[in-house]
């Protein structure tokens, strides 16, 4: 960890400019991933810009939805009664992530930008295209348990570790960004990238882009929604597979449905194919299973030690079915 300067900018504009104007500058919010990476030698900034005071730390009503300041801590967001009532899957996702201490630190803007926990990415001594482009992907043929099954490339099979992001993806959240060219919005489902041949880039953000807020549109279907995380420990572990889902069933027929998956791809995976397959269909288990199958049509396991991650494919199906069964039974 080399030495760096530390700055506390006056406002968001100054923060954005401080980073945008210096290739070796980084934003510091909750610090839960950045400080980790500084110690692992994964990032070597010359300048650290503290943004905890430059964006809102409040959740406010706007246009029937909620507007979440980027500096809102995960624990505050998870406990917000409006989130619990109107977007339970988001509260559940937040509460299933990390630990009480970490949720007190991590921010709404920072959580979706955390980087993969792939062991090879985090180990400077092994090849990794995300960390050192062109060095290869050691996860293929190696420790593949936590790697992806959807949208992977030959260059990278890593998964995105955030739970919150999976719910935001299902909720069609909108990200507000302040960049060198001014303010803009990005649909949350388009914030993260697939690895393709450039796995070093996790998102479509450019250097200096500052997330200022995340907007949750009015989403009545989300009032009955769930986040289900399947993991190796009962708590305090990253997802093997997770499912964020909301469903509206009337007269036994699925009128509308939202499904997003975690632990399966380089980005929180919005399961549009599964949603499409389910809309207008009877809310029965066979259809849930077929919907999951539709989403997984291009799923590919990563070869590796101990059988790779092939188990994730049936696990996704089983978890999707389990969640939808639970939601629709509650419906009735």
């Amino acid at each position, binding site marked *: *960890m*080399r*030495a760096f300067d530390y700055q506390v900018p006056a406002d968001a504009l100054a923060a954005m400019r401080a980073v945008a104007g210096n290739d070796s500058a980084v934003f510091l919010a909750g610090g839960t991933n950045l400080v980790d990476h500084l*110690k692992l*030698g994964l990032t070597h900034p010359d300048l650290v810009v503290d943004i905890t005071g430059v964006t809102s730390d409040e959740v406010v009503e706007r246009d029937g939805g909620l507007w979440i300041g980027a500096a809102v801590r995960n624990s505050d967001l998870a406990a917000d009664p409006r989130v619990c009532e109107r977007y339970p899957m988001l509260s559940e996702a937040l509460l299933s992530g990390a630990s009480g201490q970490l949720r007190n630190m991590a921010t709404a803007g920072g959580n979706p930008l955390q980087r993969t*926990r792939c*062991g*090879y990415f*985090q*180990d400077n*001594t*092994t090849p990794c295209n995300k960390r050192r482009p062109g060095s290869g992907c*050691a996860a293929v*043929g*190696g*420790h593949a*348990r*936590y790697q992806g099954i959807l949208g992977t490339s030959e260059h990278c099979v890593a998964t995105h570790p955030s739970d919150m992001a999976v719910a935001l993806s299902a909720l069609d959240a909108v990200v507000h960004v302040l960049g060198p060219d001014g303010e803009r919005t990005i649909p949350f489902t388009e914030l993260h990238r697939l690895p393709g041949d450039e796995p070093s880039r996790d998102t479509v953000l450019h250097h200096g882009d500052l997330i200022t807020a995340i907007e949750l549109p009015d989403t009545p279907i989300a009032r009955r929604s769930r986040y289900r995380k*399947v*993991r*190796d*420990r*009962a*708590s*305090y*572990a*990253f997802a*093997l597979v997770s499912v964020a889902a909301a469903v509206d069933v009337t007269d036994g027929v699925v009128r509308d449905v939202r499904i997003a998956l975690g632990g399966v791809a380089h980005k929180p995976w919005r399961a549009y194919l599964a949603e499409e397959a389910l809309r207008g269909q009877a809310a029965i288990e066979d259809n849930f299973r077929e919907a999951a199958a539709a989403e997984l049509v291009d799923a590919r396991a990563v070869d590796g*030690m*101990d*059988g790779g991650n092939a*188990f994730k494919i*049936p*696990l996704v199906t*089983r*978890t999707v*079915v*389990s969640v939808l069964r639970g939601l629709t039974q509650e419906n009735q």
Partner: protein
Amino acid sequence: MNAVGQDMVRRDGPAKVTGTATYAYEAEVDNAAYCHLILSTIARGQVTDVDVSAALALPGVLTVLTPGNVEKLAPTDDAELAVLQDGEVAYRGQIVGAVVAETSEIARHAAELVHFTYHVDEHDSIFTTDRDDLYRPKAINPGLEPDTSIGNVGEAVRSAHLTVAETYSTPMVHHSPMEPHATTALWQDDSLVLWESTQSVHSVRTDIAGLFSLDAEAVRVICPYVGGGFGAKGSPHGNVVIAVMAARALPGRPIRLALTRQQMFAIVGYRTPTIQETTVAADRDGRFTALAMAAYGQTSRIKEFVEQTAAPTRMMYAAPNRATSHRIAALDVAVPTYMRAPGECPGMFGPEVAVDELADALGIDPIELRVRNEPEVDPETGKPFSSRNLIACLREGAERFGWADRVAGARDGDWLIGTGVAASVFPAFTLRTTANIRFDHNRYTVELGAADLGTGAWTVLTQIAADALGVPVEQVDVRIGDSAYPFASVAGGSSGTATWGSAILTAADTFRDKYGDDPADGDEAENTFIGTGFEGGPYATYAFGAQFAEVRVHADTGEIRVPRLLGVFAAGRIINPRTARSQFVGGMTMGLSMALHEHSVLDPRFGHVINHDLAEYHIASCSDATDVAAHWIEEDDPHVNRLGAKGIGEIGIVGTAAAIVNAAHHATGIRVRHLPLTLDKLLAGLP
């Protein structure tokens, strides 16, 4: 009133709950400098060049230790301790250098700036049983025969009513104490003080004095508290040698050196992966006609440690035909060592699952099957057991757990429910230790170089000393954790309390013989307890136990939970029920962790453990183990030692994983033979 047997609160409790108990890295010294280790990034080869210029140019860097620029150590056959003596690299993660600097931040930064050039040799880190270079070691830990055979197993299998012959395995696992190995070292006026996180201050002193050609009197090792050890701090590793080198390079300057969590996965030992080819043959009534295990493990090419995986197979159950063997692969991997219940912990997994499989096939209750195969004497040595209460543990456990109510196919909503049982065992022995007792101002001070790893030694030794001297505990000050006190054995092998307690009894006898009941200020006596050694005496001395688990498996996702774990143990006399219960429960909780989570993933392409941190190397969290209960049988064993205590630190982890795997089978019908028991191993068999 006797102090022994009382529920005495930990003497070090207030210091621990406030965080004022000081561990090795926290020793109070002035003007400390900080040392950071550098580990090899190749698995085999040589360091051919080291460029330290960038590191030395960094303001605040005091020195850089590299192969060849450090002092020559005395010859040693322990290659783990011969750090930086040459540029040879025998495994990935071996110590190849260290930086000392004014602050820990600078030391860490400088460590990144030291540039190593390697000649890389092809390495081989693949552990399998079909290698052609597996060998039979001369001995297995702690000095046992590698192979044993009685009768004819093959013949017995051919004529058996039923045989279970399966291969079971346990993965590489790491001790992972919460306190990373740490040292504060000060070299001043030709003497060395080490505040070291260790299970044995005296063995650190002996090893360090030998390596640096110092008189033992010139070395003092202090360790009042240890943040967990489990074997990883049983004998010194290369890190403490580096700390001493750094201290001697900077006389008068205290050096602090702590390992990072990641470094812990390379240089302080681990439990070898084991493969256990297990055979249990039985007649129609379930009487075993043959018992055998061919055990396989790995060791490092530069230092041999052989896990005694098949040792418990030799004594656990009766059978006329028996065989055990150990074969080892010496690989380009880090050095394994003993970890909580070496031998018994992994080695009771295969057999205790196999017995469950046999019970299932025979249609006999698994407790009843074990009862039918209870031996009269130790089946291989013929020695009588000093006491053996396995059946009592099984019966009492069954009663407390509600074993009779178990039903197949139980379900609660989405969760499939099952229960399982397995037996536990761990040998009881004692080692050599000296204790000193002094009287002053109406108080007795008892000194010995023992260690409290969280076991409760501070407290239970006080209780033993009070009774030995016939005075209230308030009148006794026990002092441990310092090599300035008389020699004490390692806190390991579940031998601590029995050994150190026996030494205190011996010293107290001597004290009373010399001074009677009314000593004068300054009266002092010392005596040495010899102990049984690992060979034991005329009796077979073992603690036994029975473990019961309830397992729930989610019918959709295969997630596995253990809502209930109950153990009953027969471990001789219990000195302090409060700390004893914590020891049993702690061992069982670690056994649960082993069953469900632990797996150090060694990537043979690189030669090191990839999941080398606590986010990826899972140990059980609070939510995984909320109801773990331990009970014990009152056991009066006049043969084991004067205290009648057998040791309780390790038996709790033995058999737990088998009980959980057996319960998972009861819940799902799926038999998992390879740990850890994770959901991916159940998914295909779920409805």
